[in-house]
């Protein structure tokens, strides 16, 4: 990747245009006929570029980016699987992309929603899904609203607290807060699982439910889940399933069978739609039978991210009932293979079979010696960039100080994984030899490590002409 320094504003020149529009009628009134009190006085400071200028600029920008099509993303809890290209073609079909959201009686559209509802219900063991949520966190919020609606419909207004394990994704407590719920944290035990004994005293009649991620963010299956479900249900609470980690269970385990009442899925994780540099996603929410009446919670403008739903549906049809069974298993195979191949060089805090991901707690030998700081998890992550790999998720979960969270998906080959293992071993060897090689990484990327402190202290958040 090369460094390209321009912003679109800096290649702007008055008089250039990048648009091709019909002529304005010169004999008719235009926007100048709008009362002056309602008009802006100055044109907005937008760039003026020709079409080829714009194309070259954004192509240059793209070349400073890393994507799934560029290389391997061992990014924990993000499920960076291959994004099939047929899905893009289908989402772009004018007969779908040209539909106005208020159009009714569209049989082709209804079939997509119905087909997805049925397929996701089959895969998860839920009864029905709503497709309005636009992302995972949005789905969490929707699911929690459904839980609150359920309790309120029974006249049970005091259930305003929700239990969240200390290993949960940050969105869990944040979604709970936005939903007006107080968060009660339940600790993990030495095996990295929710401590059932810690949970029991928390279960009183103010508990709306519990949010669980299973496998949890350590990649470990919460094997006491059925007992936890019974305890929570007996106490009158409901179980929320955070679908961010659903990938290893696809084709093998269904949240509904574990006792979960409501869940979200990230179509941009488990169902192969592109992450798009941070969105758009889609976070459909599924519920068990008794919660179906509350599925209508209104959380977004129209019908959810239909374009994303279309892509996911195309993926499911390709997968079919034959291939679905291999999806989670191959992801789990890849994760365990990496874990077993690196645990002699990286600290594995909990020795256990993992699911789609696992967490190391930094290097076993970080190279620290007299007058020299050891290589940190951040250093390892940055050094990986030099070798053409994306970094793993780092410093999460918060249970370990040097967390390195690795998730390969089922679309990565053994050769890719072997290459990654080799590089991770080489980085460990470098750290042991001279941690400074890691401290100064990355060396081959378009930029070196940026000054994030200054960025936050003196924020420059938009372009201003020099």
């Amino acid at each position: 990747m090369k460094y390209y320094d321009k912003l679109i504003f800096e290649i702007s020149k008055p008089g250039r245009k990048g648009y091709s529009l019909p002529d304005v009628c010169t004999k008719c009134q235009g926007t100048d006929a709008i009362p002056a009190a309602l008009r802006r006085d100055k044109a907005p400071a937008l760039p003026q570029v020709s079409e080829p200028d714009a194309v070259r600029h954004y192509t240059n920008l793209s070349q400073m980016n890393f994507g799934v099509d560029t290389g391997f993303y061992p990014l924990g809890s993000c499920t960076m699987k291959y994004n099939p290209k047929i899905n893009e073609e289908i989402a772009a079909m004018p007969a779908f992309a040209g539909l106005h959201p208020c159009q009714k009686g569209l049989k082709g559209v209804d079939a997509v929603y119905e087909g997805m509802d049925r397929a996701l219900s089959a895969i998860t063991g839920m009864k029905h899904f709503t497709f309005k949520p636009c992302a995972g966190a949005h789905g969490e919020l929707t699911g929690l609203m459904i839980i609150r609606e359920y309790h309120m419909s029974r006249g049970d207004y005091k259930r305003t607290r929700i239990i969240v394990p200390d290993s949960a994704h940050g969105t869990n407590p944040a979604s709970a807060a936005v939903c007006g719920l107080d968060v009660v944290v339940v600790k993990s035990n030495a095996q990295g699982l929710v401590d059932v004994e810690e949970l029991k005293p928390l279960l009183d009649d103010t508990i709306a439910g519990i949010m669980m991620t299973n496998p949890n963010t350590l990649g470990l299956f919460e094997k006491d889940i059925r007992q936890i479900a019974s305890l929570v249900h007996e106490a009158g609470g409901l179980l929320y399933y955070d679908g961010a980690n659903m990938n290893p269970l696809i084709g093998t385990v269904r949240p509904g069978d574990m006792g979960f009442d409501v869940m979200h899925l990230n179509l941009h994780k488990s169902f192969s739609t592109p992450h798009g540099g941070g969105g758009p996603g889609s976070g459909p929410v599924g519920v068990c039978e008794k919660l179906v009446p509350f599925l209508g919670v209104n959380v977004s403008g129209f019908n959810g991210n239909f374009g994303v739903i279309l892509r996911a549906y195309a993926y499911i049809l390709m997968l079919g009932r034959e291939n679905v069974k291999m999806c989670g298993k191959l992801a789990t195979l890849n994760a365990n293979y990496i874990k077993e191949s690196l645990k002699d060089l990286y600290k594995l805090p909990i020795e256990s079979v993992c699911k789609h991901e696992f967490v190391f707690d930094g290097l076993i030998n970080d190279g620290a010696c007299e007058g020299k700081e050891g290589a940190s998890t951040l250093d390892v992550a940055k050094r990986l960039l030099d070798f053409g790999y994306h970094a793993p998720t780092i410093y999460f979960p918060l249970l370990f100080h040097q967390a390195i969270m690795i998730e390969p998906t089922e679309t990565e080959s053994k050769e890719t994984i072997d290459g990654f293992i080799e590089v991770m071993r080489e980085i460990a060897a470098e750290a042991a030899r001279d941690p400074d090689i890691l401290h100064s990484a990355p060396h081959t990327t378009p930029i070196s490590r940026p000054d994030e402190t200054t960025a936050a202290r003196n924020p420059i958040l938009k372009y201003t002409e020099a």
Partner: protein
Amino acid sequence: MAGFNYFPHTDQDIQSMLNRIGVNSLDQLYADVPADCLYQGQYDLPEAMTEQQVRDYFEGLAALNPRLKVFAGAGAYDHYTPAVIPYLTQRSEFITAYTPYQCEISQGTLRYIFEYQSMICALTGMDVSNASMYDGPTAAAEAMRMMVAQAKKKNTVLVSATLLPQVTGVIQTYAKYAGITIKEIEASQGQTSKDSLEALIAQGDVAGAIVPSINRFGIIENLEGMAQALHADKALLTVYCDPSALAVLKTPAQWESDIAVGDGQPLGIPLCYGGPYVGFMACREEYMRKLPGRIVGQTTDKEGRRAFVLTLQAREQHIRREKATSNICSNESLMALWVTVYLSLMGPDGMKQVNDLCYQRAHYLYAKLLETGKFQEAFAGAPFLKEFVLKPLVPAAQIQKKLADAGFFGALETPEGYVSFCATEKRSYQEIDELVKALAL
């Protein structure tokens, strides 16, 4: 041959990987899962399709949807999308990238978000924009939360009766669970009533108000004095806008609003049955650290070169958990790129031209519809841009049916019994004449 084109593993690969792990089978990797959690049944899914079958299947579904020329707005506008946009946004390096947390290999995403933020500031006149939200309605709901957080002890937000119903709907949902009181500012002559606003402020507890720049009747509202009335009571103003129209209309900043939100869809994003779109959210500098969502900032790398990073992250859920300004994690990054490329191509002159074209076509349609004798003016003399409502003299359903039969979609009915129409630069005079002719029959 068995196998699946998205899964690279050969049987041999699987076996040698299992060997290294030290287990005998893939099933053994699930030995920690209690037996009663393992699904033993057959998944109720269709048989796997080939790629060609998938394509045929969707082409079949597509054929079931009538292809209508869109003369409707109501929050989703059929503007022209230049070919460059899908071409660039489909580049693998953009579309298959993750959130730009690893800034050294994400400068492409970070730079276009920085450009996006700059363009949103240029259109709204505000100081700071975030990296985008899910859609316009959720951005409005976040603005409501932000105003209440800023007000500390006040808990009521006023919402204009002239806002689009889907915007008010989502605001009400978020308000309900957050325990925020929503009061409606009445409409007068199809516009937000300033008297009603002042009366509600006088009742006390008002943290802020949300009013539209162009409202659900298509009327360009005069927001004179609203910010002042709110500010006098230490309350804030949020203006909900169509960012395309902001290229010619008075900006939220000129109305002295504190927050500007809306949907970026009119900036070249296809209708796509309602999504993905992109919400935008911008505010005055003093509220910068209260903004929800991601924000990109400029800094330098170790060699002193200009570099871009996600910044002010102490507001966000992955750092602050339940104390974050919002639970939002992602943004609609790729859709922000659509908007950025669109605005780059259009520039200030193209945006003016688009608005002039919309204005002329919509006003032509307005006059022609009145000539049919089947409508009366609803708000005579009220200024509009590309969308308007009329009072139908025949049932709305009948109008809609005639339009559909002639290949058009429009005449959406409002709760008051008006019908709304919209004409963008994509609608030709010939199409307008055909639509009018279909109605006259």
